[in-house]
């Protein structure tokens, strides 16, 4: 069953949904990266919650006009309109009042959602169309979906992805450095608007699959995950698309393979699993790597400081420093430096003195800027240069008394 799901053997609708989800996941991952790099990840939360009143109003209008209120294309159009209004309210609040963006996001999402709930209860009590199934938009539901709906989703996913690919270059520029982009003559405001438009498109297409509460995850989690693996924005964008697509495809396939596995939550959880793996295991920014690096760094700092203190005959107060010196065989248990320790200490102090000369020399500014207390002077200067400095500060002296 599971294998069937992954190889798209579960029927026409399930296949369409899985493909649509994968396209949507890719588009969401890429769009979300721009938001994330712009530090506006949660704007998507306001956008998605703001779709609810639109869905309800579209349903009411279509039902009152005598048509089928459940027409997916019509509902999605309504959701886009109300998400647009929500976005406009949010921008207005941050621009014209003292509220920060997070407050504006929270205000818009809660009020629009609250209003949407009111409309939902209106629809329930009016009894139009018996079971409207609009609750499906809260959490997404792909079970029992119509062929036409699946088609809308697959096509929507494809169109959104295409749009994202077409506009990725100016958006990367704006997300990375808006001021530079403005200086280059890019219409930053319009590109921001475009970015929000894409967020809206992703949200609207994703409503039926993952639902409006969880669509945010598709936009945020892949971008955050991708950030762990690369420092280059174009790579982050591509990776986010990849992670998003994979998570959505696996999620949709898994959910089709067994009952009681709702599509949206499964996609989100697969996405999170990728995130958690990256958080811990990514080679550079991952937690494991960072912890190891920090411990190594801390030891270097303490060791170096300990050597300098030894060389200058200062008392050492830090127990970690003492422990490290002893373990390296540089210090005896009674606190007196060993021969090796004295030699290393003299070398450390001498290097400090050399650095001092470098840093006092106008012509060596580039080398001096590299000083951070830990860098070996040999990595910055040539042997000849060091000898030249040594001539200035006098030859090496005997350290042992």
């Amino acid at each position: 069953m599971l294998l069937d799901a992954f190889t798209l053997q579960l029927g026409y609708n399930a296949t369409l949904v899985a493909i649509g989800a994968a396209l949507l996941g890719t588009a969401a991952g890429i769009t979300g990266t721009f938001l994330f790099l712009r530090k506006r990840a949660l704007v998507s939360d306001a956008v998605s919650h703001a779709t609810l009143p639109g869905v309800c109003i579209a349903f009411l209008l279509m039902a009152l006009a005598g048509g089928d209120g459940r027409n997916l294309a019509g509902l999605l159009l309504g959701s886009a309109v109300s998400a647009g209004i929500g976005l406009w309210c949010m921008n207005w609040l941050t621009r014209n009042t003292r509220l920060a963006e997070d407050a504006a996001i929270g205000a818009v999402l809660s009020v629009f959602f609250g209003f949407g709930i009111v409309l939902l209860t209106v629809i329930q009590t009016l009894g139009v169309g018996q079971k409207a199934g609009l609750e499906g938009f809260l959490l997404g539901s792909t079970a029992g979906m119509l062929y036409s709906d699946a088609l809308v989703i697959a096509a929507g996913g494809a169109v959104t992805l295409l749009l994202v690919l077409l506009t990725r270059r100016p958006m990367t520029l704006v997300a990375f450095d808006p001021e530079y982009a403005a200086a280059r003559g890019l219409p930053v405001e319009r590109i921001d608007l475009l970015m929000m438009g894409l967020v809206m498109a992703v949200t609207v297409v994703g409503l039926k699959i993952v639902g409006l509460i969880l669509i945010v995850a598709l936009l945020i989690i892949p971008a955050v995950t991708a950030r762990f693996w690369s420092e280059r924005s174009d790579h982050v964008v591509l990776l986010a698309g990849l992670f998003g697509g994979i998570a959505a495809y696996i999620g949709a396939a898994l959910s089709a393979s067994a009952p009681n596995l709702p599509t949206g939550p499964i996609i989100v959880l697969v996405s999170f699993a990728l995130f958690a793996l990256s958080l811990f295991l990514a080679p550079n920014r991952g937690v494991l790597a960072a912890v190891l690096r920090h411990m190594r760094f801390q030891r270097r700092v303490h060791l170096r400081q300990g050597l300098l203190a030894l060389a200058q005959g200062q008392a050492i107060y830090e127990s970690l420093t003492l422990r490290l010196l002893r373990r390296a065989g540089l210090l005896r248990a009674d606190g007196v430096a060993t021969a090796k320790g004295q030699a290393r200490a003299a070398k450390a102090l001498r290097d400090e003195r050399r650095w001092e000369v470098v840093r006092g020399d106008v012509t060596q500014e580039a080398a001096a800027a590299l000083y951070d207390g830990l860098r070996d002077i040999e990595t910055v200067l040539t042997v000849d240069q060091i000898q030249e400095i040594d001539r200035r500060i006098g030859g090496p002296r005997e350290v042992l008394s």
Partner: protein
Amino acid sequence: MSGEEFVPLSLTPMLIGVFAAVACALPGNFLLLRRQALIGDAISHVVLPGIVVAFLLTGMISAWPMMLGAAGAAVVAVVLIEAIRRLGRIEPGAAMGVVFTTMFALGVLLLEQSDTSAVHLDVEHALYGNLESLIWLDATGWGSLLDPQALRYLPIELPRMALTLVGVCLFIALFWRALKISTFDEGFARTMGIRTNLLGLGLVITAAVAAVAAFDAVGSIIVIAMFICPAASARMMTNRLEAQIGWSVGFAVLAAVLGYVLAGYGPLWLGGQDAVSAAGMIATVSGGGLAVAAKCGPCRSRAGAPAGV
């Protein structure tokens, strides 16, 4: 309207709504000023997995395990957000987005997987509660407020919410000065010996307790709205924190009362027959309050450029 009708049918839900709104609005003021407004959003989403796990562990729908489960989930969420933010060096908004969506997804999945059809536990209820059902059938009129027999059958949510409100007020009164200093100038607060990290965690836990208690009665959507809208509206009205707190309580009470009345009677006035969701209406009204304050509040602009200049 006569007391015979009002007291049993409307007084208790209205009071519960008011208490819930104020309990959320008070910590909301500080969350707003600390740029943590969306913590309320995150907390209200993770309440669902909390109660589902509590239900799966105890096998029953009863208040205390669920409150504990929800509060536990809120604390887990806050710790996770903080851990991801620090460990992964990710901006707080994105860290929040990762955590609350994942936990919410987990909650929905658990709910679908477990057999909860026999009990009243579903996502819709979690989202918009059921304020209208918290009626006090033993009341016969205003006199019942003094009748111990009738008081025994008050909906349990009322005293619970009142207790929560008292707890929230106590926390804020006790740490008022420390909260104010550390919100304004965290570095300075630390030099005064204020444990700003602990205080911040305390504030978030207080908010979580308020959210959980309110959630039980009125659903999570009201909770998000009440964390943000009253405080945001109050921010437009004054430049003093003390006054801002007062205004926010006013906005919260107004939203709760007006929202409840509109939800219950609005459709009747419009010729409809059934009430609409009170929780949703309260959130909507609080948004209306914010709109008015943002349009006309005397202190709506950022400092340095007073309104009208």
